[in-house]
């Protein structure tokens, strides 16, 4: 059938124009600019021209204990909160949801999802109040007669990791609930009748069947966690000292508090590269779908 008024190719692509222009100007542009100024000594103040300095910013970064500290903390934060925390807890919650009674499921789901929907800064406050000395956790520990401490001072990176688990687990829970729903009931029932225990069913049936959801979920969680700024900023400002200063906070400090835009951007570029790497893996995982 021939359509009337069939537009030629260029005209058909026209609706793409506004989106493409926005993306080029405000996303691709800054990324290109990022690459450019990471190789200069651009500063915020008192400098008319910046000059090309090659890899100096990167060499400086890799020799800078503050940078290495931030890389380490970012790694700890990401592994603890996203890969271990959000991912495992999300799967556990989804599995429990399938077995629990309806009202309990509704209540638990609502609470966990509310933590996810709250604005970042509000979540930061709530967890600041939770972990501070004299805060709720302190009270609970005292009530249980466990040793009390000021978590934000003694173990700040652990506190912000827990905060990120609190905030981000809902996403994994929703992903895994959807994935578990797609497993045909007959398969796990058959295994159950054959006498396979819970752990064996999990390992041999459930996990293999949802492995692609696990892959994409891990990828998205990790990317999300890599770029967390507001939550940590509100809770600790990266401190005390630099004991919860992950890469985004280091980038901010170098570029703005120390006015080293070039150096700060070099840090940002490294973060972007790690993100791009994860993104590429994510694309590979989805490759059959596009």
């Amino acid at each position, binding site marked *: 059938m021939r*359509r*009337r008024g069939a537009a030629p190719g260029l005209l*058909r*692509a026209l*609706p*793409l124009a*506004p*989106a493409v222009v*926005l*993306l080029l*100007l*405000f*996303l691709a542009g*800054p990324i290109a*600019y*990022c690459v450019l*100024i990471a190789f200069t000594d651009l500063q915020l103040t008192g400098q008319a021209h910046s000059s090309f300095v090659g890899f100096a910013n990167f060499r400086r970064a890799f020799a800078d204990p503050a940078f290495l500290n931030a890389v380490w903390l970012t790694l700890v934060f990401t592994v603890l909160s996203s890969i271990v925390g959000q991912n495992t807890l999300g799967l556990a*919650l989804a599995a*429990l949801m399938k*077995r*629990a009674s309806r009202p*309990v499921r509704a*209540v*638990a*789901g609502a609470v966990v*999802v*509310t*933590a996810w*929907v*709250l*604005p*970042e*800064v*509000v979540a930061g406050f*709530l*967890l600041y*109040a*939770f972990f501070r000395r004299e805060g*709720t956790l302190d*009270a609970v520990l005292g009530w249980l007669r466990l040793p009390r401490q000021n978590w934000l001072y003694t173990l700040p990176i652990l506190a912000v990791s827990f905060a990120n688990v*609190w905030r981000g687990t809902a996403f994994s829970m929703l992903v895994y*609930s959807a*994935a578990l729903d797609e497993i045909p009931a007959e398969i796990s029932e058959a295994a159950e009748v054959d006498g396979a225990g819970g752990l064996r069913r999990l390992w041999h049936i459930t996990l293999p069947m949802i492995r*692609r959801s696990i892959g994409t*979920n891990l990828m998205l969680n990790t990317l999300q966690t890599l*770029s967390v*700024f*507001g939550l940590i900023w*509100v809770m600790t400002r990266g401190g005390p000292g630099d004991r919860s200063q992950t890469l985004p906070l280091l*980038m901010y400090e170098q570029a703005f508090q120390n006015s080293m*835009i070039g150096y700060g*951007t070099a840090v*940002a*570029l490294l*973060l*972007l590269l790690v*993100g791009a790497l994860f993104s590429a893996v994510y*694309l590979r995982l*989805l490759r059959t779908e*596009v």
Partner: protein
Amino acid sequence: MARALTRTRSTRTRTRARAARRRTADACLLLVAAAFALPLAWVVLASVDPSAGLRVRVPHALTLGNFRAILTPDITYTPLLNSLILCGGATALTVGCAALAAYPLSRFRSRLNRPFLLTILFATSLPITAIMVPVYALFVRVNLIDTLQGTILFFAATQLPFAIWLMKNFMDGVPKELEEAAWTDGASPVQSLLRVVLPLMGPGLAVVTVFSFVMMWGNFFVPFMLLLTPDKMPASVSVNDFFGNRGMVAYGQLAAFSVVYSTPVILLYVLVSRRLGSGFALGGAVKG
């Protein structure tokens, strides 16, 4: 006979085992939910507590004083209005551009579709936080720093990849035949997009709109970097003033403000997820 008896017995043990398992699952879930609820309980209780501290506790007396103290133009109305302008503007821009862009991607076949979609998908997962420093430098150069329109444009650009991706998936669900009928009646592609396709994907459109709005409403880093003047700040940044600037932290007021600021997005989420199931925001993004 004996065989049938064993079978019923084994079914009965299995039902009993299942009931026991349900109780265990309920207990575990309630425990986790309680842990998750503690910080939430703090904000709700502290907001009506005349002498709120950092700890969860049932107030000795109830008061609306905290709300009364914060419901002033300075503290609440201006920041919320700014949030509304920023997020509303950026959401409108995002949804408009995404709907337009999704149309050719969903309807016409082209060699460029696949690379374009892959690029979009790649861009959805880039850490936007990382480019805030160059964006700041760029905005200073082109005089967009400290302007609402500049922030709106950047906000829209950051949401666009995911919005286009979702929108395209929803649009694929609208059968092409309906549109072809409109074409034979002489409708142009623009008309058929506006009159046929978009109305048919109402829920999808709602998902993209609400999702974009909620993401931007809670975003702290972007306005924190791109806006400088206090009276242009949205609520996500102005809430910071409760610390520092105002001296002693009034926790009750902080909690009251958090409640006021969070309520719209929670309501929006509830509204949309009621209609579309809890996994609404995930759409086609994490099928697997």
